[in-house]
Every structure is written in structure tokens, then in C-alpha cells.
């Protein structure tokens, strides 16, 4: 299918199904139930899953394949966001030109930064990319405030020109990003019993782009180009003596992954038209590194899982407060309830960082290949169990 072998095609279909049915899958608990707190099926978070998934997939093309660890990749995300918001300000609220410009701009930045940084390898490369990103952050936050909005970020205003669109809506508001007349925030709701599922246009738009991005990543992974990138990671010297010039390959990978980041940035701005400098801070670059490692470096689906896991913690666990805890454990006798709440409390709400840190450690310690390895272990365990069951059955059957 689509030029993929069976395994990849299955993976793509799984991702497609997960993406398309995410509003159901992420909302397993009925509205109003105690567990509803864990529902993640609201537009903003679903969009974030997908957008950071794209960011991480792109990052993995560079890091997972070539082993070059960029510690400044968020810079391209930032560039993409700024480019997109400027398009919204100047041209129109249609997301297509914004995305196109963002991808081009981030590609150009990646070309420049990559060309310079790739003159070094290993940690020296990482620090070069980090330095570039930090400079961009610092300047965007301060000196470049007229272009970037500085601390408050670049925002839309009522008096923006928007030459192909309207400066304000008839009601006197700032128009919202859309796609040929549809608004990104348009949503439909489906109520089944006490379950409420939200289908948001912006999410599906991002979802389709994720699928395209994922598909392209599979193609890259399986292509001769991808193989060369893995060879660079394995033994650059041998590659050189085999007649391959590693430089353009790494640079191409760098630019591609920079463009993925720019795409993610543009989508962020399209879902929520604001671009801030902190998107380029080193912690943001670090976050995508962590997402990729957490999910599984060099695997196709891993980065998406890692992105999902971190964003889930950030948005769901951080919102649990002591009130909610008390309501969960209200069934316990009073003393015990307080005790349990006291035990759990440091790990949720404002303690979500602690939980995140612990999860990072547990994952690397017990699942060296990241979450993907966890999945593999479960599936091989299941397969073994089935095999053993089949085994038993076949044994009971008389042999011919």
C-alpha cells in the first residue's frame, strides 16, 4: 500500500485510526465521573499531541537516523510560529499561506544554522545548535521585540492590515485562523449517554497533516537516503571511503527536520494565533529531545508516543488539585482519606514535575528502548502466551 511494505502499512493504518478516532479514544470516561479528569479528548490537547508529534517525528529524522543531537531545534519551531503569525497579520487568516511560509522560513534558517553547525560533530555540534537557539531566544525576547512581540509574544491586533482578509470581523473582533471559510476552532459535539465527544476542525486538519508527515517519515526511513543517514550514525569514516559525501546528507536531514519543526510551529500558531519567544528557549529544545528518547529513538512511532506522554502529564496531571483528590478518595474513612491524599498530593497538581521526573527515570531504567520497547514487550508477551496456548492445544491433538 502506498509503496510501503506490510509492516509499515499496518503501522500507518494504526496511526491513522488512532488519529481519526482520537476524540473517542482519549475520552474514555463519562462526563462528570471522577475519572473524567483523565479525559484528554478536548481540542486543544489533541491538537498539541499531534503538533508535538510532528515536531518529534521531524526531530527523530535527524537524531534517530544520523545520531546528530540538535539541542536547539525549538528555534525552528519558533521561526515557524513567528512566520505564520506574521502571515496572519499581513496577509489573511487562511492557514495555508501561513504554513507554507513557515515551512520555507524554518527551512532557510535550518539551512544556515545546519550548514555552520554541521562542521562539528558530537557534543560540539549539540552545543553549536544550542548556542544558536539561545541567541535567537534572547534576541526575540528583548532586542527584537518590535518583530517578535518580546515577552508577551507576537499577537494579532484589530488594526493589522490582513490585505487579503478583513482586519476585524463585523462584530469588531479579531478574525480567527481558518481554511477557506471554515474556522479552525469549529467543533461538533456528539453526545452518547453521558459521554461527550468533540470533533474539532483544527484537530482534524492537524491530524491529516500528521498522517502526511508520518507517511513521509516512513518513506524517508525506508529510502536509500534514510539508509545513508543510518550509515552516518554507524560509521561516518567508512561511508566517506565508500564514496559518499556525508555532509549533504546530514545537512538535508537537518533541513528536513527543521522544516518539520517549522510546520509544527505554524500549526501551533494556526490553532492558537500567538507566537512567543519561550518556544525557542533551551527547555523547549530539551523537551523534544526528551519526547524522542522517552518514546524511543530511531523508531517511527516512538516520538509521537513520547510527545503524547509528556503533553498529557503537563496538561492533565498538573490540573489535579487537592479538592479533586479528596473527591476521589471520599469513599475512604476520613483518617485514611487524608492519609492517602497526603501521600498522593506531592505527585499531582503542582507536583506534576516530580511525577514527570520519576517517569523519565523509570522508563530509561526499565525500558531502555523507550515506550516503544514497552509496547514490544507487551506484545511479545501476549504472543508468547498465545503461542503457549496454541502449543498446549496442538499437543493435545493427536499427531498423525
Amino acid at each position, binding site marked *: 500500500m502506498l509503496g510501503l511494505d506490510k509492516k509499515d502499512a499496518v503501522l500507518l493504518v494504526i496511526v491513522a485510526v488512532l488519529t481519526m478516532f482520537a476524540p473517542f479514544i482519549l475520552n474514555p470516561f463519562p462526563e462528570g465521573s471522577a475519572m473524567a479528569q483523565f*479525559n484528554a479528548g*478536548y*481540542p*486543544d*490537547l489533541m491538537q*498539541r499531541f499531534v503538533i508535538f508529534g510532528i515536531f518529534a517525528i521531524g526531530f527523530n529524522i535527524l537524531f534517530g537516523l544520523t545520531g546528530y543531537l540538535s539541542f536547539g531545534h525549538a528555534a525552528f519551531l519558533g521561526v515557524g510560529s513567528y512566520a505564520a503569525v506574521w502571515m496572519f497579520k499581513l496577509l489573511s487568516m487562511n492557514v495555508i499561506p501561513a504554513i507554507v511560509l513557515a515551512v520555507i522560513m524554518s527551512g532557510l534558517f535550518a539551512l544556515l544554522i545546519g550548514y555552520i553547525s554541521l562542521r562539528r560533530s558530537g557534543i560540539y555540534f549539540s552545543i553549536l545548535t544550542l548556542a544558536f537557539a539561545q541567541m535567537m531566544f*534572547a534576541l526575540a*525576547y*528583548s*532586542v527584537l*521585540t518590535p518583530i517578535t512581540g*518580546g*515577552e*508577551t*509574544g507576537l*499577537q*494579532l*491586533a*484589530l*488594526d493589522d492590515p490582513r490585505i487579503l482578509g478583513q482586519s*476585524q470581523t463585523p*462584530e*469588531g*473582533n*479579531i478574525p*480567527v485562523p481558518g481554511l477557506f471559510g471554515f474556522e479552525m476552532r469549529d467543533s461538533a459535539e456528539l453526545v452518547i449517554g453521558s459521554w461527550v465527544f*468533540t470533533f474539532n476542525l483544527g484537530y482534524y486538519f492537524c491530524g491529516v497533516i500528521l498522517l502526511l508527515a508520518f507517511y513521509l517519515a516512513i518513506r524517508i526511513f525506508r529510502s536509500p537516503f534514510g539508509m545513508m543517514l543510518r550509515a552516518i550514525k554507524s560509521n561516518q569514516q567508512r561511508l566517506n571511503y565508500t564514496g559518499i559525501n556525508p555532509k549533504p546528507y546530514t545537512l538535508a536531514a537537518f533541513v528536513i527536520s527543521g522544516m518539520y519543526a517549522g510546520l509544527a510551529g505554524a500549526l*501551533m500558531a494556526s490553532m*492558537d*494565533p*500567538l507566537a*512567543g519567544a*519561550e*518556544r525557542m528557549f533551551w527547555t523547549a529544545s530539551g523537551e523534544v529531545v526528551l519526547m524522542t528518547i522517552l518514546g524511543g529513538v530511531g523508531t517511527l512511532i516512538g516520538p509521537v508516543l513520547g510527545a503524547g506522554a509528556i503533553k498529557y502529564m*503537563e*496538561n492533565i496531571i*498538573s*490540573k489535579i*488539585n487537592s*479538592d479533586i483528590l479528596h473527591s476521589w478518595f471520599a469513599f475512604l474513612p476520613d483518617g485514611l482519606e487524608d492519609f492517602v491524599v497526603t501521600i498522593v498530593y506531592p505527585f499531582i*497538581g*503542582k507536583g*506534576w*514535575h516530580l511525577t514527570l521526573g520519576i517517569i523519565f527515570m523509570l522508563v530509561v531504567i526499565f525500558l531502555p528502548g523507550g515506550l516503544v520497547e514497552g509496547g514490544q514487550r507487551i506484545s511479545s508477551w501476549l504472543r508468547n502466551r498465545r503461542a503457549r496456548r496454541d502449543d498446549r492445544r496442538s499437543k493435545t491433538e493427536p499427531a498423525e
Partner: protein
Amino acid sequence: FTNEPTGSTVTLGFNVPQTGPYADEGADELRAYELAVEHLNGGGDGGMMSTFSSKALDGTGILGKKVEYVTGDTQTKSDAARASAKSMIEKDGAVMITGGSSSGVAVAVQALCQEAGVIFMAGLTHSNDTTGKDKRANGFRHFFNSYMSGAALAPVLAANYGTDRKAYHLTADYNWGYTTEEAIRSSTEAMGWETVAAVKTPLTQTDFSSYIAPVLQSGADTLVLNHYGGNMVNSLTNAVQFGLRDKQVNGKDFQIIVPLYSRLMAKGAGANVKGIFGSTNWHWSLQDDGSKAFVKSFGTKYGFPPSQAAHTCYVQTLLYADAVQRAGTFEPCAVVEALEGYEFDGLGNGKTLYRAEDHQCFKDVLVVKGKENPTSEFDLLEIVEVTPVAQVTYPPDHPQFAGGALGTCNNGG
């Protein structure tokens, strides 16, 4: 309109920093919110509800609906704050978002609420821009701003330090820093001070020694630290370390000024704040009925007095509830109408006006000074003067607030 409450409850979103450098401030804000909810629902001693000039609230929630709340973590980052606010709006059905501990976050979330069609009641945000170039019809600020700090401080400084001082500004290199520097400069220069230099310092700076060391050489006799939070704690500590306060320049004692004080910052800077002037929105030692009532109910519940951030958050919640009650609906545009031009009293800063043109509160501003002999770890500042509201009022089109438009209120869909 967005998230119209249909059941017997109404959900408010409290969006405060729970991680990062302002986590303690966020925690105090959250305490205030919880207290406010308790009072709105008829619990506790009612706090400021009894001193509030409007008597619309009756302790049965808002419009008879029990107040519930959700909390989120802004991380003091615009993106995270918006994500958190969005989840409150999209997932939890919040009709109002409030909180925040920096202007960047306030401006970002305010714009979001405008777009989504919910009311935003800003928490701690001091930049002129929040109700200046970045104002929004759905957003309201109770906290004072840079301009007001300047206007309140200048006369006190003139009275204490004379009118021919040479000031050296260190300014945090971002929007809030810029507006604060501008405000303090223009108000002190109006009194005859001279500004020798203004140097921008990076947000991420931790050691300010190289910025502070040249101050004495410049011939300045006053140092203005347009810094907040960790920046302020460190720059002030460094300045004292360099012995600036023991020096004499131009025949005068060298002085340091911190335009915006908060209790947590004062605590972080320790003994270094002693005798240093600054301004603040509110302080627990105020003796009006409203403040006393609030301090009492907060102190009883939590064991220590509230911070100015807690105060502003508490008041914003009551003001919102009251506006809904008066409007008779949660509909944002009706609430906006009820708040615009609304005058009230009894919430701690004397008679206060929510100005219609920019949704900024106008009220008395406190000039404070680091206390020489604190009696407890909360007793760090003493009120030097309560600057009357008239002195800090400015026209809506004041140049420091130029640009941007309020727009029209948005009810969402």
C-alpha cells in the same frame, strides 16, 4: 455564549504558576481563590463580602449556582498558560479565567479569552501594556501598573531624597521592564531628577555584579532596579553586596529604589530590603475594614497574612461574581457592561473605579519601604504613604498606554 452554565454549578478557572520561580506566589494566589470560593458559597466568615460596597452577593454562590473551580499551571510561560486556560475552557467549561503572575502570561491569556468568549480577570500583572496596547474587551485588571508606581513613588522620593538626584536604571530586558523604566523615568524626571543611564539586563541573568559595579563610576547617586522576582532579589542583593548603600556620591547617601515590591521578593532579598522604597498594590497591614476582614479570614485559614497577589486575586473573584450577580447573567458582554465604569469600595484600596475605556482599576497606591526591624517573616514592608487615586490617574490616551484597541466584547459561540 461560551460555556453557559446550565446545571446547578458554575466553574471558574484559576490559572496560576504552580511550577517555576513564581510557584510560591501562585500558591498564595490559589489560597486566595479557594478562600473566595468558600466565601461565595457561604462558607467561612465571608471575608470582604461584608465590607464590599455592593451587596449583590449573598453567599449562595453566583446567581444561585454553587461555585466550583478548576486549577491549572501557567508555568509562567505564555504557551503553557494558554494551554491550561484552553483546557479549562474546552474541557472543564469554565466561564471565567483568572490568575497569572506576570504580564506576559496575562496578556497572552487575555487575548485567548477574548477570542474564546470568556471573561479574564487578570491576577498579578503590572505592565502598562495589559491595559494599554494589549488591552482586550473581555479582560479586566485590578492590579496597579507601572505608570501608577511611578506616579506614586516620585513625590515620596522627592520628599525623602530631594529633587536633584542622578538616577541609574537597571532594567529587565522585556516589555514589563520597558514600561516600568519609562514610567519611573518620566515621573522622576518631572520632579527634576536626572537619568544618568539606563542599562538593560537579560531576563536570564543571575549575577548582576557586572551591571552594578559601574554604577558608582557613572556619578549616579540613586539606583533604580526595574526588576521583578528572582531578578530583583539578585540585583538588590548584589547591589547591597557592592556596598552601594554605604557610599556617598555627590555629597548624598547613595540610594536604591525598587519600583515594584512584593512580599515574596522582599523575603527572598532578606535584610537587603531594609529602608528601600518601592510601591505595592496592597499590604496586609492596611487598617481599613476591608483589608482587616480579608487578613483575618485568610490568616485564620492559613496561619499567615496574605500577599498582594492573593489580595488582588481574591478581589477579582468577588468582583466578577458581583458583576454577574448584578447583570443577572453569566453572559460575558453583560458582565463587561456591569464592570465597565463600575465604582466600588470596601475591598482594601479605598474607593475604586473600573474604568470603561481600558478596564483598569483606579485606586489608591501604596508606597512602602523595607522595614528596619521586622517582627516576623511576613512583616517586611512598612507603608510610607497611601497615594490617593487622583494622583495616579491618567487619561486613557496617555502616551505610555498608546496603541492597541479594546475592541468589542466577545460572547463566543
